[in-house]
């Protein structure tokens, strides 16, 4: 396969992991995580700084990325989790934006608006193929882990909390603890996606923590389908692939993305996978009807 396609596939996997991690809190947890990209950025910057500023071995930095992101998730989560819905989202947005301004301005450490480029990753990862296999392995393992979490008793409780928090509280489930744990887990995997991005691109930049990226991940979840496990991955795949194709012909990619988003909200708010599920369910029903 040509190197370019391998690169695109790797980018889809990284973005897909990021979107899937958001879906854990958003789709399964019903939490208004307005600024998920912050954890992606924290994971990426942790790896970048570990290599360029601290001189740590790359694998230590790679392990640190998700852990630091999870710590950031715990800190921001503890502060925000006492609020609900829009107020939760706005407080999280303000905390995330604060972090973004610090990254943007702390030039001596983060490189300011230029970011950090040409990060030296181990030789085996410098070829796209090497990076691809690492990304495939990590994303594969992460998706399996996330799937197990969603299907676990914890995942079931989380969905119950989403659907009826008052009732869960009444039967003795600690709603906030469940939400907080979900936020930390999601931040961990977003951090892993961020570190993988550095492996692939060897650069970081402050826009990874900007609110626009957070909404773009939302769009991926919406496009794929919030209430399905594979939806966000599918959504990320469609958007990354479309962007790659579109950027060859036009400079107006954001107009295309915006149009897709508007059409989606009007005609298919349940997303591709959600639509597919409904379609399959519909077919099954008609077939059963035929036998009756």
């Amino acid at each position, binding site marked *: 396969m040509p190197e370019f396609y391998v690169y695109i596939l790797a980018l889809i996997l990284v973005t897909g992991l990021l979107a899937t991690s958001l879906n854990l809190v958003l789709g399964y947890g019903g939490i208004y995580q307005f600024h998920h990209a912050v954890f992606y950025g924290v994971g990426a910057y942790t790896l970048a700084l570990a290599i360029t500023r601290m001189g740590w071995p790359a694998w230590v930095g790679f392990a640190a990325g998700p852990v630091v992101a999870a710590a950031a998730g715990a800190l921001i989560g503890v502060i925000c989790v006492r609020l609900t819905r829009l107020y939760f989202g706005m407080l999280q947005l303000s905390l995330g934006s604060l972090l973004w301004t610090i990254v943007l301005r702390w030039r001596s450490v983060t490189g300011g608006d230029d970011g950090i480029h040409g990060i030296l990753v181990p030789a085996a990862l410098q070829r796209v193929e090497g990076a691809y296999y690492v990304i495939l392995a990590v994303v594969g393992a992460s998706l399996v882990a996330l799937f197990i979490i969603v299907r676990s008793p914890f995942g079931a409780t989380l969905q119950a909390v989403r659907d009826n928090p008052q009732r869960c509280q009444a039967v003795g489930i600690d709603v906030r603890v469940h939400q907080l744990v979900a936020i930390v887990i999601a931040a961990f995997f977003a951090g892993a996606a961020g570190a993988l991005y550095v492996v692939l691109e060897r650069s970081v930049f402050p826009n990874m923590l900007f*609110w626009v990226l957070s909404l773009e991940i939302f769009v991926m979840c919406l496009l794929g389908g919030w209430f399905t496990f594979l939806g966000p991955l599918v959504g990320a795949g469609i958007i990354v692939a479309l962007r790659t194709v579109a950027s060859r012909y036009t400079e107006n990619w954001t107009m295309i993305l915006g149009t897709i988003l508007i059409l989606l909200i009007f005609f298919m708010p349940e997303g591709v996978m959600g639509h597919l599920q409904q379609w399959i369910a519909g077919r099954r029903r008609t077939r059963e009807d035929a036998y009756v």
Partner: protein
Amino acid sequence: MVEFTALASQVLVGLSRAMILFIVSAGLSFVLGVLRVPNVFHGSLYMIGAFSAFSIATWLGGHPAGLWLALLGAPVVAVAVGLVVERALLSHLYQREHLMLILFTFGVMLVLNDLVKLVWGPDYRSLVAPPSLQGAASVLGISVPRYNLFLLFVGPLVAAGMWFVTAKTRIGRIARAAAVDRDMVGILGINVSRVFSAAFMIGCYLAGLGGALVAPTTSITLGMDHTIIIEAFLIVTVGGLGNIWGALVGSILFGVTQSVGLLVWPQFAIVFPYLATVIVLLLRPTGLLRSVW
């Protein structure tokens, strides 16, 4: 030690910047309060206002009246764009949940972003204030740029106008009633859809006016929508969702912390308003003043 006059002049400049933030976030807050729509493309209308002001002033070939006509004309362009989007698309979505409305208006923002690029090109633009507003004036021995004094005059004017519209006019009263209970307003036989449309136009007007007012003070560029909208959303939250006076308080907090920060620690000046926002929201998550939500 920071000199007193320098501090005072910096506070005045911060207040004048706060006036632009207020005009923009008052529009956002009004739409949020009446229509319950968190309008992400409000920032795009601000950008369209700034670019339109540039075009109108350039079209007049640098005539001193250019800016004045731009201040009149640019908000009209923003209103026209907003009205088309509201009537054609947004008005069909009012019943959707907030997350969908955020995503929808984000989609419109993405489209408008590229439309602005197609119409005005990707280059930086700038606009010169008319001679009467150039240079600095001295107020009580404090030197302040004339244009900033002009902004300090316009801000309260807009605030008074908003107070008059919401408190004294029929449409304002209906809009406030609709903010509290839109079903009841509909039952009373009022065409809620038209009220929403009018309220939305007021919001768009304020976004365009903010853009036109900011045009002579900064470079007009693609991406100015991204920064203003996050600032406006945080200001509106700090002030209390839907509360226009809250937007004023939030804007002053945002503008003054940034300009004083510029004096204290220039490198991190932009961090201070965000820090102030976080501190306020930690203490009062629903904002300083009463939210209409």
